[in-house]
């Protein structure tokens, strides 16, 4: 187990190097003039002559050969310099650091209801295979699976904000935002709900929560569908296994047979999907963040893309790749925790 993790950790820098190479190569497809905009505000050179622009490019090393530019870029990366974000009006790294907590917070609130309910529905459907409950859950999954997220997100907004007035878009109400931005409000974790509680502001906590429930509903259906389908099929397969019959032959109550003997085996493939979901939640709930006008990594990436802010796009790409690599490592480790055949094999 330990050697397995060490082996994976040793591979990590190599993979990250590969990622930087790909991200950098992709950015080079843009051509030198576009690249200049990652260093200099395009307005400053819009009226410059061709020669001045060439000088400017030379100044930023854009005329150097590829390996030299890549080397410089990596060197800057190591110093934490990812360029200037036009959209964020701050360095890219700062822009990422400032927006990521909002995405984390949304992911945290979405995670538990999605995994809990998704697995529960999947197990229930499998245990009541082909019954009315099963059919109902399957239809529920089918709709969630087929409904495009931008449609569903807008429907949620329509029903719960415009219709019922419960869950407004945005991160906070204006009054709450003013308090949060003020000097007296201390940011311990940068997660709004938690900071609100730590500051003893229950009213702000409720306000932040109210703003987060809508997006959570909008994200959940698709992932419920995803998780419950995997859980259901995996559970159905496991329920036919000999060891489930063995467990019954021992006289164990059906509850123990299902929740202990069957479920632990059935969850092994579910871990992958759940892990991918966590990564997906952290790296880009782009559409939901856009529809609900929330600050976060997803909406940042979308705005950057709209405004051709290359430095920001590269930054997001690099950052999400890193998350993906680390996330996959965690998935593999949790595999080993659940399945002794991997752990000891």
């Amino acid at each position: 187990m330990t050697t397995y993790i060490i082996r994976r950790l040793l591979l990590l820098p190599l993979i990250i190097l590969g990622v930087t190479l790909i991200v950098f190569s992709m950015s080079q497809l843009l051509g030198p003039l576009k690249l200049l905009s990652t260093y200099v505000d395009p307005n400053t050179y819009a009226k410059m002559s061709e020669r001045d622009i060439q000088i400017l490019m030379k100044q930023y090393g854009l005329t150097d050969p590829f390996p030299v530019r890549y080397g410089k870029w990596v060197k800057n990366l190591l110093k934490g310099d990812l360029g200037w974000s036009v959209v964020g009006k701050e360095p890219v790294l700062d822009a990422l650091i400032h927006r990521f907590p909002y995405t984390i917070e949304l992911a945290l609130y979405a995670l538990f209801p999605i995994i809990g309910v998704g697995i529960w529905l999947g197990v229930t459907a499998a245990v009541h295979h082909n019954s009315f409950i099963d059919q109902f859950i399957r239809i529920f999954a089918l709709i969630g699976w087929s409904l495009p997220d931008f449609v569903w997100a807008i429907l949620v907004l329509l029903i719960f904000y415009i219709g019922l007035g419960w869950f407004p878009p945005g991160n906070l109400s204006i009054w709450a935002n003013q308090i949060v931005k003020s000097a007296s409000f201390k940011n311990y974790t940068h997660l709004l709900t938690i900071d609100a509680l730590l500051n003893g502001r229950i009213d702000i906590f409720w306000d932040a929560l109210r703003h987060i429930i809508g997006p959570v509903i909008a994200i959940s259906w698709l992932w419920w569908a995803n998780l419950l389908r995997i859980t259901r099929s995996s559970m159905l397969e496991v329920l036919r296994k000999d060891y489930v019959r063995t467990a019954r032959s021992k006289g164990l109550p059906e509850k123990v047979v299902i929740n202990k003997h069957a479920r632990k085996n059935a969850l092994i493939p579910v871990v992958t999907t759940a892990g991918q979901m966590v990564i997906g939640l952290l790296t880009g709930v782009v559409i939901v963040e856009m529809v609900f006008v929330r600050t976060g990594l997803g909406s940042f990436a979308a705005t950057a893309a709209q405004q051709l802010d290359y430095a920001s796009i590269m930054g997001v790409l690099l950052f999400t790749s890193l998350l993906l690599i680390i996330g996959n490592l965690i998935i593999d480790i949790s595999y080993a925790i659940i399945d002794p055949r991997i752990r000891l094999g």
Partner: protein
Amino acid sequence: MLNNNEKPLLKVENLHVHFKTEDGIIKAVNGVSFELYPGETLAIVGESGSGKTVTALSTIRLLDENGWIEEGKIQYKDNDVLSLSDNQLRKIRGKEISMIFQEPMTALNPVFTIGDQIIESLELHLDMNKQEARRKAIDLLRKVGIPEPERRIDQYPHELSGGMRQRAMIAMALSCNPSILIADEPTTALDVTIQAQILELMKDLQKEFQMSIIFITHDLGVVAEMADRAIVMYGGEVVEAADIITIFKKPRHPYTWGLMNSIPRIDKDEERLLSIPGVVPNPLNFPKGCKFSNRCFFADEKCVEENPNLEEIEENHFSRCWHIDRMLREMHKVKEGER
């Protein structure tokens, strides 16, 4: 051995088991009856699809969800098994009647240690605490011949060899001192040398635990080794039943005789092994009359039209065949030929 004065432990009467499949309802077991007496080993012999496993699983109502007992009576001691509640049934499963299965790899749960799986039974049925149960589990593992049980108890099934896994399975099945052990082809998946060891172990443990065994197999060699009595099944019916010596010396059903001829014997110089022609038909379209008629050497029109009853042809020897006389003549001829 067989003592008819004693009360049977388990009595199955006129058992009918059906399964619902996409192609229709399969009548897997049709009117099987047998009795199991304390301390004896009863073999249920037949090819795959003969209904032998389903018959055994029915005794503790362990059928898959698409199967059900259509008709019949199952009596275990004073319990009418078919009318027990699920809770009452669970007190019999694993405690009074326990099972071991064909594939020790798939029958043990891969994500729990063998210790956990044995201890679970002990805690459930014998109200032991964790420490007592662990001590008892180590004892059991030692008893079934697993070396270093203190270390093995914390291992997972995939860390054990096939033979060791089956030993662990046996330890689990015997953990609560059952009166009946149902062994469903327990040695089929094992190497021949390991088979012999496991059979030997089961015989020893039977004496020690004083239990009855229902031994399900297609292997007559194993039957000769293990059983006191045997019932031969074909197409969901019993075609012949007798004590083991009678079955081997005086088979009175063409199917049983055919099975015997498929066993290679070193004491006879045979040019080739006779085998029963054809395969077991799809249970959805068995012949109308005798189920064996389309593969039987002696079959005529009567066999195709009408299924014979299971008759007691001599004391405690039952057979289901119209043409026992013709079969006897043929057997005689074969014997003459051998001389």
